[in-house]
Each structure stands twice: as structure tokens, then as C-alpha cells.
């Protein structure tokens, strides 16, 4: 067998594997969308859920998912950014940074159920936050922080060393170099990382079941005072998200149209995550173009 033939076979095999992966993905997506999209309607997207009757929606869950996402991102992004800047721009390679990196690695490979149980014991029980948006947001932060830190660190790594030396050689301090030269150049790639991690957070269920809770009390969308119990903004209320809702209906849903609601919710979830992914690509590309070309 000559090398040309070998090459052909290898390429063929790789194409085959890649094709198979794409096929599985398409089949999955197709199935979920085909069974879910017909359930979608304005009513479904906005109405509150019903426990025993037909015709409930996922309005509250959808809102909860976004609210939790925003809160979790608002908490984890600044911490992750700071940690990444410290690790990549300031810290020297020594046992402290090695320890931090190992911790981040372990944290990022923790199963999310474990993160959820930890969140339950620590935030819900110990800190007495109860099943609440806040507990959920903290749990999601734990879940998100390691991955986001690594992704921002990777973004910083793509900006080459000469840029940093260029800043320092102009008499800029390290901090000025990082904030005025490196971060602006890294924004497109950081943003891509943030949006992609937002997609993962949005679809997360296991970390939330025992923290944000499994109930979605009806909300009064006319009341935006975060201290009122029925206000959507109240961070102390229990808040079932879309992903948790899907899990819940499938395990113990007793409404007559449970199957339809689960399909519809899955479709909404998938569409939202696809949107996150496409936005990430688009925004990243656009920003990069604006920074690099005319």
C-alpha cells in the first residue's frame, strides 16, 4: 500500500467520522425542532405554567432563565476577568499560580450536580438563602467561573507579547498596558467566550434544581419593585428555569399536555442556545473586522 493510498483512506475515514457527528447532531436538532416548534405560540411563550390543566405556558420559566443568566454573568464575569488578568498578565509561574490553575481545572470538571448539591448545602441551607434566584445565581457562578476564567485567559494569550512590550516601552504601566492595549484587542475573542458560556449557563439544569428550586410562582409583570414577593425582579423568590422545567415535567409532570409542553420547551431552549452561538460568531467576527481592517 503506497502512501498516496494511505492518505486517501485516512482522509476518507476522517470525513466519515466528521460526517457521522454532523449527522447525529442534525438528527437530534431536527427531532427536537420538529416535535417542538408546532407547540410554540405567543401564548406558550408568555403564559404561566399550569400544574394540572392543559394549556400552560413557559413565560415565567423563560423570564427566570434570562434573569438568572444575567445575574450569574454579572457576578462571574468581573471575577473571571480579574482572575484571568491576574493569572496571565501579572502572576509569575510559581506554586501559587500552579495551585490556582489546578483548582480551576478541577472546578471546571466538577459535574454540575455536585455544584448544585454544594450550592444547596452552602447557599440554600447554611447561608439561609432558601430556594431562590440568588442561590441559583451563585451556584451558576461556581459552575461558570472556571470555564469563563480559562476562556478569558486564552483570549489574552492570543494577543502576542510584542503588544505588551510595545505598551511598556511607551512608558505605560502594566495596568495601563493591560487595560488600554491588551483588553481592547482581546474584546472580540473575550466576547465570543462570554456568549458561548452564556449558552451553557442558559441550558444548565442540574446545578439549579436544588438551588433556584423547582417551582415558578406566578409573577406580576407590572410590579418591578425587587422587594415585593411577586415581582419578577425579587431575587429571593424560587425560580424554576426552562431547563429545570423540562426535567421536571418529564420526571413528574401531571398536566395532560406534559409531552407537548416538554417538546415546546426543549425547542425554545435549543433555539435560544443556537442564537447564542450564532451571535457569538457574528459579533466576534464583526468586532474583529472593525478592529483590524479599514
Amino acid at each position: 500500500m503506497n502512501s498516496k493510498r494511505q492518505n486517501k483512506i485516512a482522509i476518507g475515514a476522517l470525513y466519515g467520522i466528521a460526517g457521522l457527528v454532523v449527522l447525529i447532531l442534525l438528527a437530534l436538532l431536527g427531532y427536537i425542532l420538529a416535535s417542538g416548534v408546532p407547540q410554540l405560540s405567543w401564548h406558550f411563550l408568555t403564559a404561566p405554567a399550569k400544574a394540572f390543566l392543559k394549556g400552560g405556558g413557559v413565560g415565567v420559566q423563560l423570564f427566570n432563565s434570562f434573569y438568572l443568566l444575567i445575574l450569574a454573568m454579572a457576578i462571574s464575569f468581573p471575577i473571571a476577568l480579574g482572575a484571568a488578568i491576574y493569572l496571565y498578565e501579572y502572576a509569575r509561574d510559581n506554586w501559587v499560580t500552579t495551585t490556582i490553575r489546578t483548582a480551576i481545572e478541577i472546578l471546571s470538571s466538577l459535574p454540575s450536580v455536585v455544584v448544585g448539591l454544594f450550592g444547596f448545602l452552602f447557599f440554600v441551607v447554611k447561608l439561609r438563602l432558601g430556594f431562590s434566584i440568588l442561590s441559583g445565581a451563585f451556584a451558576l457562578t461556581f459552575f461558570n467561573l472556571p470555564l469563563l476564567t480559562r476562556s478569558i485567559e486564552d483570549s489574552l494569550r492570543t494577543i502576542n507579547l510584542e503588544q505588551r512590550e510595545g505598551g511598556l516601552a511607551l512608558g505605560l504601566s502594566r495596568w495601563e498596558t493591560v487595560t488600554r492595549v491588551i483588553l481592547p484587542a482581546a474584546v472580540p475573542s473575550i466576547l465570543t467566550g462570554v456568549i458561548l458560556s452564556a449558552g451553557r449557563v442558559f441550558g444548565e439544569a442540574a446545578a439549579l434544581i436544588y438551588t433556584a428550586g423547582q417551582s415558578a410562582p406566578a409573577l406580576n409583570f407590572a410590579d418591578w419593585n425587587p422587594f415585593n414577593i411577586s415581582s419578577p425582579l425579587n431575587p429571593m423568590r424560587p425560580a424554576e428555569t426552562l431547563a429545570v422545567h423540562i426535567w421536571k415535567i418529564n420526571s413528574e409532570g401531571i398536566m395532560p399536555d406534559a409531552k407537548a409542553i416538554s417538546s415546546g420547551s426543549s425547542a425554545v431552549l435549543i433555539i435560544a442556545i443556537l442564537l447564542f452561538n450564532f451571535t457569538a460568531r457574528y459579533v466576534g467576527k464583526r468586532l474583529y473586522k472593525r478592529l483590524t481592517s479599514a
Partner: protein
Amino acid sequence: MFINNDVTKATTMQERHVVQPHEAGHPIILSTEDLHVFYGKKEALFEGDLQFGSNQITALIGPSGSGKSTYLRSLNRMNDRIATVTGKIMYRGVDINQPGIDVYEMRRRVGMVFQRPNPFAKSIYDNIAFALRLRGTTDKYALDEVVETSLKQAALWDQVKDDLNKSALALSGGQAQRLCIARAIAVKPDILLLDEPASALDPVSTSQLEDTLLDLKQHYTIIIVTHNMQQAARISEYTAFFNQGRVLEYDTTSQIFTNPQVQVTSDYVSGNFG
């Protein structure tokens, strides 16, 4: 051509030969005394004390790994976090290699241009203006003025004056390197350190860059590391030959190239090295 292939015939060779510059009208602006540079335990530079006359171009030449960059980067303390530098670096009578020195202020007086052009991911205008803005120059006219004069001095103005708001990353290699020079001189340094600034450029850009450096000499003291013997011969008044962490020979450029006093220098400039 300066390079004389018969130099090996010179009479008695010395082991080391250093003549510091001493020309009227070119007072010493920068010098090093007893400079040693260590990377960890490894001593990369140990006998390299040079003086530099103001408004002159000094070339640092020598084989790869001989310590040229190490020396150059010590001069504006770019090696601070990387290496241990002991000894004195006297700049206008002040030792800038001591703890109390404001390194950031010092680096604005001793600017640096690197081997690979490194424009920032900003517009051409902002590449030059932003360091000034950071130090409090906010007046638009003042900034415009500095941007224009810097670009003119770096011989880039005519090519980019209509594209000042375009990204600097779209410039060609030669243009980008000029922008880096413009950026360095915009903060009004006395001294420009250049580490093989032309090694990533084509011959035409290289020769333009050399012309630019010759013009800049009126305003700045220039120290340039180069692997290109012709370049050193064309533009510099003084040349230092580095070898294995030492300056083996320092003298006027014409002496170094036509009448070197050290055998290794002679071999190196005539291309018989090794």
C-alpha cells in the same frame, strides 16, 4: 563598500579593544558602568560597558546569542521582570538602574522599537495619540500636531495622512515599523533603541528606514542592533562588536570595518566567522 576582506592581514591583534566616543559636539548622554545581566543563574552579559554620544547612531553587532538584545533591553529596563541587571546605567548623570527611578517616566525618554513591528489594534491616529492622552494631553489640536510631526519624522505622513482613522493593523510591514517609530518619538524621547528594526522588512523598506534613521539623528540618539553589516556601515558612527556576553571591540564604525584590532571582530565583519 566599507567591508575590507583583507583585514585579517592586520598586524598585531589585541584581545579586546574599546575606544569610547569623545567627539566635540556629541557629549555622552548614556553610558553603562560595570553592567552585568543574569537570566536566572546564567550570566548573559558581563563585560559590556559602552558610552553613547548624543545625536549619533551606534550599531551593536555580533553573532546570535552574543548579548546584543540583552544589553539593549537593559538600557530602558525592559528586562526588569525577566533578568537581574546589576551595575550603573547613567543617563544624563543619573543612574537609572536604581530602585527609586520612575521607570515609566524614564521609558518615555528612552524609547524602543522592536524587531517585529507591533502596532496596536487601534487606528493609526490612536496608535500615536493614546499614550499622550493617558498622560493628560487632551487638546485635539495639540494631539493632531504631534501625530502629524511624528508621522512626518518617521516618513510615513504622506502615505497615511488620509487614512488616519483606519486600523493600523492594515499597514504593510515597512509602514507598520515606521508607525512604531512615530509612536516612539511622539512621547518625545532623547534616545531611541532599535532591536533589528529592519530584519522583517524587504530591501526597499529597509533602505527607506535607514534614510529615516539618518534624518532622526538630528533630534535623537540612536542605538541599533543589526545583523546587517552593510547597514551598520552605512548609518552608524560607532559600532560595538559583541561576542559571548562581552563587548570585544568598540570604536568608530570605519575603524571596526576597515581596521579591526581584534581577531574575532575581523573574522566577523569579513564574514569568516567560526
